[in-house]
């Protein structure tokens, strides 16, 4: 399985963005120009994609084979190097059904059903530092629970969208989405600190302080972790009881024959989780400086030995509230995405195998595309330059060069072949890492088989 990071996610979006000859471009911009009259995806094969990325660490960094150091040393070195802004992302998508057609009024209706897994985890720097280096080396430092930040969602998405060509230069579109949450695990709102203070004038060497602890883990779709069932997750794809709605909006505008601009806002929506939900939680404050022995005085006739440990446990339980509960209800916003592109067309005029053969087209398109995804701890952004050109009348290619938080040298490509109505495309990125894929911070792969046709 290819491993990717959010950089990979960004790169893959950019490869399909603004490709008006592919229906999948409508999932990235419902207002994109549409260069076909209908399409029908091959069920389960019309959009298979996987992307993974890790910021500042690679598989090779950890699992390389050498005689210089062993794996624990390499992990330790990475723990020192990584920060709480580093993260790993896994994204997978599968189009189950995909279809579209042009109406008599000229609008393009597209609809379908896809499954999507999106997971992100930030590196819990403070937790790792406390684990590897201990508290003695960091006296007075407040280890932050907020460094624990992770989220994974698997959703089933039913969608229908419409693309309308307002005039020769301007197209707009929107898509309505009905989400069915298959599985969710979310721990992104943790707060509080753990600090060990040196107390020269105190009762003991230290004072250990848990302050304003508040956080936990919410899961949905499976009940508690003890009840995890793959079949249950699959059943949730339709009638799981965790539902949400969202919309996509987009446009494209041609300034003239050569210049155009486009933009889209995707997954503006939410899912309300209330079925098979479970929560593990903890909150409170607690100070500890050891167990104070109270030796009986010679004048004290009370010689009962105090239950120090039990008292400590009770005091802890009174101040720290840890527990778990079922049937909680919570709402998560979808990771909203903002995309935009500026395109310049040039080169020889082309007789294209497209919707309007009379259209004055240039062979090459180049430009810049930008994207941003709202993540729990930050905004993940990327900028991509591209060159899009048909090699032959049935073969289109797109070459991309992207920069993002994972790499400054992300070269990707898309190749799309259309023989009669049958279309297959293949997209991959971070090609420069192919000499040692395991050392890559990001990689993505996508393949699709579908039917695309024009009535003209």
């Amino acid at each position, binding site marked *: 399985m290819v491993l990717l990071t959010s950089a990979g996610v960004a790169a893959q979006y950019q490869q399909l963005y603004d490709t008006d000859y592919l229906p999948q471009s409508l999932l990235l911009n419902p207002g994109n120009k549409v260069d076909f009259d209908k399409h029908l995806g091959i069920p389960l094969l019309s959009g298979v994609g996987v992307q993974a990325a890790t910021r500042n660490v690679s598989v090779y960094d950890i699992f390389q*084979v050498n005689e210089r150091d062993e794996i624990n040393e390499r992990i330790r070195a990475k723990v020192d190097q990584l920060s709480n802004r580093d993260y790993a992302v896994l994204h997978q998508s599968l189009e189950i059904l995909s279809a579209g057609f042009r109406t008599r009024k000229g609008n393009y209706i597209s609809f379908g059903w896809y499954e999507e897994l999106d997971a992100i985890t930030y590196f819990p720097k403070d937790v790792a530092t406390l684990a590897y280096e201990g508290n*003695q080396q960091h006296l007075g430092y407040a280890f932050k629970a907020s460094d624990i930040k992770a989220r994974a969602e698997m959703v089933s998405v039913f969608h229908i969208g419409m693309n309308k060509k307002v005039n020769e230069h301007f197209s707009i579109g929107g898509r309505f989405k009905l989400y069915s949450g298959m599985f969710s695990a979310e721990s992104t709102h943790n707060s509080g600190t753990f600090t060990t203070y040196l107390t020269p004038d105190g009762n003991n060497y230290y*004072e250990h302080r848990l302050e304003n602890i508040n956080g936990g883990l919410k899961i949905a779709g499976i009940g508690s972790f003890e009840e995890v069932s793959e079949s249950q997750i699959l059943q949730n794809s339709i009638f799981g009881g965790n539902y949400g709605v969202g919309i996509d909006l987009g446009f494209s505008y041609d300034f003239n024959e050569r210049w155009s601009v486009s933009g889209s806002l995707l997954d503006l929506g939410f899912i309300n989780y209330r079925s098979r939900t479970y929560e593990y939680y903890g909150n409170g404050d607690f100070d500890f*400086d*050891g167990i104070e022995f109270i030796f009986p*005085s010679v004048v004290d006739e009370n010689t009962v030995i105090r239950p120090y*440990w039990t008292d400590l446990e009770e005091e802890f339980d009174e101040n720290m509230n840890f527990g778990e509960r079922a049937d909680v209800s919570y709402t998560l916003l979808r990771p909203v995405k903002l995309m935009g592109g500026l395109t310049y067309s040039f080169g020889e005029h082309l007789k294209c195998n497209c919707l309007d053969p009379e259209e004055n087209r240039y062979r090459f398109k180049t430009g810049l595309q930008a994207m941003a995804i709202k993540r729990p701890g930050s905004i993940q952004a990327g900028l991509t330059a591209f060159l899009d050109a048909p090699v032959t009348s049935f073969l289109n290619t797109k070459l991309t060069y992207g920069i993002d938080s994972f790499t400054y040298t992300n070269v990707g490509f898309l190749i799309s072949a259309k023989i009669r109505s049958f279309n297959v495309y293949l997209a991959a990125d971070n090609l420069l890492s192919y000499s040692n894929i395991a050392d890559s911070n990001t990689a993505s792969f996508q393949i699709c088989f579908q039917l695309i046709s024009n009535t003209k």
Partner: protein
Amino acid sequence: MKIEKLLFFLLVLLATGCTEEIDFNQVKEVSLTTTQDIDLVHFLLTQDNFVDDGGQTQQNGLVEAVKLDFLDDPFFQNRLVRIVFDFRMTNTFPQSLTAVIKFNDEDGVTRESITLEAAGSTNGEAIVSEYDVVKEGTAISNITTADTVLVEYYINTNSAPVVGSLKFESKAAYTVEL
């Protein structure tokens, strides 16, 4: 470069993609050794613990115990590899005091013990005695089979009146292999 050549180059690149040697079996070797420094017990002894209102010594020895259930927990029994105890005693008694810290099992059998000496003060000023005690190997096994810690204190009386105080502080750095 013509687009056809570029495409050919990309396909070759894809077809020849490879990776330098990696070994996922190394995951079996992954371990984490963590050390956490935690306060243990503390207390303050005064002459009231040894003498009556008339200044007559009533007892030379004291004992107090705490049951530490976590010590015999399987997690500690399997993972604990080292404990470094730190003790600090601040004494203003003119007498020295001897502390014996015992780790007893549920049958009351002492499996491990530590003996400390707090030096006496000659002029009423606080005398600080500090000890680092490292326990490893079989000593760890002994400690993790115990469930109770006893602290015994003996004042080594002399001709001077028993007047003063002793502040006892302790912590332990637990090293655990995960």
